[in-house]
């Protein structure tokens, strides 16, 4: 994949510069997070602790002038710890709503698979709807609202794996991975004299972010590109190693993400390259492989790779269709 020809949209470019001041070698993860944010989606990070997830989200929040909240999921966490709770205020003689961490702009849901499904669903409901229900009252969520959930790799003990239906609600799933040796060297030298996160300031306002999100919706997707998306998605349903293929929601997500990705690169139309680049992040967590395929060592990523190299790119307008 060659990205040399791409230039970032000016405002996004500012955000990326900000993030690069704090994070080293995490440009791709940062960019994908911005893509998800602009597409009004959420990100699931599957990685071990300590690779910079929190720092990334914090930096992002700070750059965007957004309210940052963090929920550390533990087995004994209750849904009300997420949504907030109404407490009786003896002075006012009435119940007063104490908002939970979900009512922030950018929410880091750390180790989401460590908590019980009941608590998980409290978060996931909020991710899908624009409001949450507390004590029978609908409480609107903030706008923009962006969740970055992390989960430990499934093999770890004491986890409650997220059901497929809930995984579907994340626009992207990605890994951050460890930095390279030289990146880590750079990191050490940078953090020795005070953390750089304290030195950055916001580069766009919350209102600007909302209008950017609107602009993303305006990005043009041609039928040729849509057809390519459909080809890819139906490919997952037909693949013999796949037990459950990607749902139509997956197609929509891929299109939305591609729009945001195109916008980030200062383009008002989607090209197949966008789709190709995003497909592994958008589709891999939306499919279940057959046990045979698992046994043979296939992963959702490898199957998407295979489909990408088997699906031809539309290079001309097919008038007959």
């Amino acid at each position, binding site marked *: 994949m*060659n990205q040399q*020809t791409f230039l970032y949209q000016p405002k996004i470019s500012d955000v990326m510069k900000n993030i690069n001041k704090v994070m080293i070698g995490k440009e791709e993860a940062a960019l994908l997070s911005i893509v998800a944010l602009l597409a009004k989606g959420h990100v699931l990070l599957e990685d071990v602790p300590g690779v910079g997830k929190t720092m990334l989200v914090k930096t992002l929040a700070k750059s965007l002038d957004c309210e940052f909240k963090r929920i550390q999921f533990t087995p004994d966490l209750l849904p009300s710890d997420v949504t907030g709770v109404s407490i009786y205020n003896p002075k006012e003689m009435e119940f007063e709503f104490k908002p939970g961490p979900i009512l922030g702009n950018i929410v880091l849901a750390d180790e989401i698979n460590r908590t019980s499904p009941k608590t998980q669903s409290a978060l996931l409901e909020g991710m899908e709807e624009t409001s949450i229900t507390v004590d029978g009252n609908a409480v609107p969520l903030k706008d923009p609202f962006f969740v970055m959930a992390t989960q430990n790799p499934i093999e770890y003990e004491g986890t409650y794996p997220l059901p497929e239906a809930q995984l579907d609600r994340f626009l992207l799933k990605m890994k951050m991975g460890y930095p390279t040796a030289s990146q880590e060297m750079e990191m050490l030298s940078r953090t020795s004299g005070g953390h750089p996160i304290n030195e950055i300031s916001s580069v766009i306002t919350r209102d600007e972010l909302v209008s950017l999100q609107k602009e993303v919706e305006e990005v043009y997707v041609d039928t040729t590109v849509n057809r390519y998306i459909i080809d890819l998605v139906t490919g997952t349903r037909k693949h013999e190693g796949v037990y459950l293929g990607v749902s139509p929601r997956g197609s929509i997500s891929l299109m939305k993400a591609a729009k945001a990705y195109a916008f980030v690169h200062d383009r*008002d*139309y989607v090209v*197949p390259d966008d789709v190709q680049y995003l497909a592994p992040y958008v589709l891999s967590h939306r499919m279940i492989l057959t046990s045979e395929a698992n046994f043979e060592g296939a992963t959702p990523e490898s199957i998407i790779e295979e489909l990408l190299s088997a699906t031809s790119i539309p*290079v001309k307008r097919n008038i007959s269709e």
Partner: protein
Amino acid sequence: MPNTINDQRSTVFKLMIYVIGFLLFCEWLLPLEAITETKNVTIFFIYATFCFFISFIQVPWYLSMPLKLLGLAFILDGLYIAETIFSGHWFSILYDQIIFNVQVIQAQEWWQMTPLFRSLLFLILLWLMSYLLFYWIVVANRMFVFVLLTLIYVTVVDTFTVYDGKWAIIRTFVLAMAALGVTSFHKEMDKESIALGGFKKGHLWVLPLIAIILFSTVAAYASPKLSPQWPDPVPFIQSATGGAGPGGSGVVQKVGYGENDSRLGGSFIQDDTRVFTAMADGERYWRIESKDTYTGKGWEDTLEDPVQTVSPDNIPFQTFTDEVEIEEQQSLIELTSAADFQKLVYPYGTTSLDTSDGYQLRVHENTGEMDTLKGDSPAKLNRYVINYDFPSFEYDQLRESSTEDPEEIKENYLQLPDSLPGRVRNLASQIVEDEDNRYDKAKAVESYFSSNGFEYSTTDVPVPDENEDYVNQFLFESQIGYCDNFSTSMVVMLRSEGIPARWVKGFTAGERIDATDVTYNDELQNKYEITSGNAHSWVEVYFPDVGWVPFEPTKGFTNNADFYTDVETDDSDSAASGSDTETPEDNMGNPQQMEEQEAASDSESVNIDSEQSYVWVYVLAAFLILALLVLYVTRYKWISAFLIRRYRKKEDEETYEKAYQYLLKVLEHKGFKRKPEQTLRDYAFVVDRHFQSNDMRRLTNDYERVLYRNESHRSHWPKVTELWENLIKKALS
């Protein structure tokens, strides 16, 4: 300046390659004289040289076009137009000719095309070829394909026509070696960026190249070569295509008339291609020639001389004496295009020929071989009426004929090879021992085969080994064969008994076609169709008072000569006689018939013309195919040039898309294949990395906007077309 030295050198290299290419091209022109009626081939050579020269010096088109056109006009003027060149009348003649020929072409009456127009087309073809070959050889540096094509052309022409390509092949080979040597050297120098400091060191590579070429040529020439491994494909192809084929080969190894009988034997495939039709009063032997010398393997002709060229009104060749009873008859012969011999086919007793003017006969007085000539060169006579005295031989006359043969006859027609096994002679004397006269002896030998289990077959006939006698093998070992086996054996056995005999070739009577719609004269005549399969050989035996009398030893065939007896009426031989005594009327002198003969003569000349123009059309077709091939190989160049012009003017999205797709095709042709799953951006990146520019990315970016953004892009058009042109040119350079 190193650059100028390089330039000079490459010019000299190019010149060398180009000259070789031109010489190869000459190999294409050389056979024309032999296989077509093309006259003045030299003129075409000169014009080709002229065009090639003009192409090489690379003058601008506004100079080269008029120059070549001028040359063309001069040639047409010199050859065909008697008027002052470029006078009003001159142009009007040219105009009339072109209009006439265009009409003829539209009517698909190819044979009507005039020589002027044919030459004009041919000259234009040479013009185009000079341009195309220049492009191919010098610009594209693609020598090998042309070399290969030339070799194929020469072999094909050699195989399928009378043209003898032996030396042409050798010349082509030498030229090809030289060309490939020079090009490969040139390419190597280019690749390695070697500068050989001018031409002073030329001997470093010129001498080895010459040595290698000489060595391989001499080695190839001197080394033993396999004889042809499969039979000549021409008769089969002609048969398969209904007998239409260009030119004519004298050598036919399948069934049919052929000239070379020095190695007889082996099977052949039946072939029913019609060779000619004949109107005749009865079944006739259609004689072509006789042969006198038996070699043990086959027949050689040692008595080709004396030869005299005569007009067809009076043919000085007789096989029998005046003492034989004759009947004047006429026969109309029409040769088809499958008849590939330029000889007269005639019945016994031929006296004269009615045919169109200008034809002459070259008569070999001993063999009876008559070459048909027009002017001085052999020409095929397609339609003619033969006047002949049909002989009837009287049995007693034959039986009572003396055996005092003239010295000349004895000398020529008793020859037998020394290697002839004794048992052949013994068998001959055994067969004839009970007979007391020459006729009965001949009859005894003639009928020996049918009564002794000999089998007629065209397949499973063995070829005698190197040390084996053809007749010996047939008589004592195989006992299976066809006319050549039977007739040769009979001649050999008769000669061993001291009876002069010779071996005759021609055709049998053929098959009578039932349609009796006789157009040739008022009388009812039978129409016979003679095919290649009717090619035949039989025996003539010499009787001092009678002359040469035909005998038919081949099992299953009947003698077409007429025999009668004055006294006895139930001679067993009368069954063999032809049924032609029922047409006693004299056909001569019938005015209407004469008229028809004239008409026949007229239509004959038309036939001849068409025959020639057919050959011409084939040659033209061959050149066209070559031209098309060259066009195909260089297709991207000229299609691009054409499209560049066209796309400049059109500005719609559809054109843009087509143009971009075409660019992809050109790039693919040049080795940049876009995989189906590769996005245009990735592809553009790869292409740009190769050309070290960003044109493809810029163009692709723009194309993407049209394709994926559904955007109109008129404002960018000039920029886009420029990028596109640059890329096409870069890709093709």
